[in-house]
C-alpha cells in the first residue's frame, strides 16, 4: 500500500484538519469529526445533515455550505459515524426549524442515525429522515438489506439544500428529498478494489481481466463478476439496468461519477457512450455532472446515476451552491 498518510488511525482527523485549512469558510469540530457551515445554525432555516463513513470524498464534508448541507459527520473510513457525532451535527445545524437527516441505506448508517434522531427528539429538535436507496444493482427484497444509497445522495443533498435555503418547511424539504430518491437509479462497475488505510491491502481480489458489475461504494458486489468489456458495452449494461428499474419520464439529471481511481479521460469517454445511448432511447439529459463526487477511496470504476427530474427539481438543481466540492451560481 502506498498512500499519503501519517498514521492509519489518524487519517480521518488529519484529512479534516486539512479541509479546514483549505476552506476557512467552514468550521471543523475535530472531537466529533464534523464539518459545519461557517454561519450555522441559520435562524429559521431547516437544517440539513448528512454523513457516513469517510473515504467517499467529496461526499459528505465537501458538500457543506450555502445551498447544500449545514453539517456533515465523518465516520471512520467506510464506517458510519456514531450517534453522539450525528447528534452534535444535528445541534449545530438546528436553527429552530428542525433538521433533515440524509441517510444512505446501509445497516450501520441507518442504526446510528436512528439512535441520533431519537436523542435529538429528546432534546426537542424535530428530525425528518430521507433514506437514499438508489442502487438498482441490488434486488430489493426481504432477503437483502435493501438497495444501497450511492450517487443519488448528491442529488438529494443538492435539491433539499436549495429548497431549505429558500426557507421551506422541514416537511417540504424532506418530501422533495424523498421524491428525488424515488426518481433516481444508480449502477456501478468496479475495475479494482479499494484499499482502506487500516487494512492496507485491497478489499477484494479482482483479476486483471475481470470487473465487478453492480458494485457498491465500499466494494460490496451486487450482481456478478464478468470479463472486462469495452466502455460502450459497460455503458449499455448501466443504462439498461437503471432504465429497467426506473423507466424514463422526460428530462433527466445524469451523474457520471468516478469511484476515485478513474481518470477523467475515461469518465468523459464513458459519458459520451451514456449520452449516445440515452439519445437513442429518447431520454433527454437536461443537466449533467461528470467527475469524482461519490468515491470509494482509490477504487477504479464508475457509477451512473439517472434522476428523472421535474421542473421543480431542475430549478432547485440550478440554484446557487457554494461548497468545497460543488459550486455554481455564486
Amino acid at each position, binding site marked *: 500500500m502506498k498512500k499519503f498518510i501519517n498514521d492509519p488511525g489518524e487519517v480521518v482527523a488529519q484529512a479534516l484538519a486539512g479541509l479546514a485549512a483549505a476552506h476557512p469558510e467552514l468550521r471543523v469540530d475535530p472531537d466529533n469529526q464534523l464539518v459545519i457551515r461557517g454561519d450555522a445554525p441559520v435562524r429559521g432555516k431547516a437544517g440539513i445533515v448528512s454523513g457516513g*463513513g469517510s473515504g467517499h470524498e467529496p461526499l459528505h464534508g465537501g458538500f457543506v455550505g450555502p445551498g447544500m448541507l449545514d453539517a456533515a459527520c465523518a*465516520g*471512520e*473510513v*467506510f*464506517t*458510519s*459515524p*456514531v*450517534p*453522539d457525532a450525528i447528534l452534535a451535527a444535528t445541534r449545530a445545524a438546528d436553527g429552530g426549524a428542525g433538521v433533515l437527516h440524509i441517510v444512505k441505506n*446501509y*445497516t*450501520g448508517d441507518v*442504526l*446510528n442515525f436512528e*439512535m441520533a434522531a431519537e436523542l435529538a427528539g429528546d432534546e426537542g429538535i424535530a428530525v425528518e429522515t430521507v433514506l437514499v436507496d438508489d442502487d438498482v444493482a*441490488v434486488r430489493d427484497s*426481504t*432477503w*437483502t*438489506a435493501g438497495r*444501497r444509497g450511492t450517487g443519488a445522495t448528491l442529488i438529494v443533498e443538492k435539491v433539499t439544500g436549495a429548497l431549505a435555503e429558500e426557507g421551506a418547511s422541514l416537511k417540504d424539504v424532506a418530501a422533495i428529498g424523498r421524491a428525488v430518491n424515488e426518481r433516481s437509479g444508480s449502477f456501478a462497475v468496479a475495475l479494482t478494489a479499494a484499499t*482502506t488505510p*487500516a*487494512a492496507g491491502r485491497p*478489499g*477484494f481480489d479482482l483479476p486483471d481481466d475481470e470487473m465487478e458489475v453492480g458494485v*457498491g461504494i*465500499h*466494494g*460490496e*458486489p*451486487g450482481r456478478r463478476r464478468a470479463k472486462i468489456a469495452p466502455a460502450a458495452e459497460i455503458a449499455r449494461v448501466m443504462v439498461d439496468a437503471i432504465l429497467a428499474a426506473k423507466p424514463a419520464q422526460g428530462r433527466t439529471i445524469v451523474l457520471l461519477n468516478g469511484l476515485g481511481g478513474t481518470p477523467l479521460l475515461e469518465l468523459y469517454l464513458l459519458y459520451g457512450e451514456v449520452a449516445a445511448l440515452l439519445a437513442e432511447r429518447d431520454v433527454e439529459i437536461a443537466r449533467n455532472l461528470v467527475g469524482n463526487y461519490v468515491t470509494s477511496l482509490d477504487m477504479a470504476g464508475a457509477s451512473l446515476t439517472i434522476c428523472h427530474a421535474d421542473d421543480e427539481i431542475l430549478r432547485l438543481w440550478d440554484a446557487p451552491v457554494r461548497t468545497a466540492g460543488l459550486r455554481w451560481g455564486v
Partner: protein
Amino acid sequence: MNVEQAREWIAAIAETVEAEAETLTRLDSAIGDGDHGANLKRGFAAVRVALDGFEAHTVGDVLTKTGATLISKVGGASGPLYGSAFRAMGKTLTSPDVTTEQLGDALDAGLAAIRKLGGAQPGDKTMVDAWLPAVAAFRRKGPQAAATAAEEAARATTDLQARKGRASYLGERSIGHQDPGATSTALIFRALA
C-alpha cells in the same frame, strides 16, 4: 458473577478482540467491507479507558457502561448492536453479585436487543446465529458450553447465505465464508468461559 468478575470479563473480551482483530478484518474483507476487527478493537480499547477508575456498584453498571461506550465509539452496525446488547444485559443486573440464572436472563436480554435492533432471524448469517445457541447452552450447562456452542455456530455460518447486513449483497457468493459478526460473538462467549 460479581462486579470484579464482570470487569474481568470485559477485560478478557478486549484482550481477545485485540489479538483476533486481524482475523475478524480478514473475514469481513471477504464478505463485508473489512472494518469489523479494527472497529471492535477501537471500541474495546475505549471501553478499557472508560471502565478504568469508573465506580461500579452493580454488575449491571459495568455492562451498561461498556454498552454505552461501544455505542458512542464504534459506529458501523457492530457498535449499536453490541452496544445495545451490553446495555440491555446491564439493565437487568441490578445487584453487586448475580446468580448464573440471572446472568442467563441477562444474556437473553442482550440477544433480544440485537434481534430487535438488527431485525435478523436465525439463519441470516449474523451474530444472532452464534448468540442463540450460546445463550441456550449457557442456561443448560454454563459458560464453557456456551463458548463451545458459539464457536461451533460461528463456523456453521460458513455454509449460510447472508440475508442481512452488507454481506447480503453478495447473495449466493456469501456462501463459503464464515460470518465475522458470529465470529466476534464467539470471542465474547469464550471470554466469559
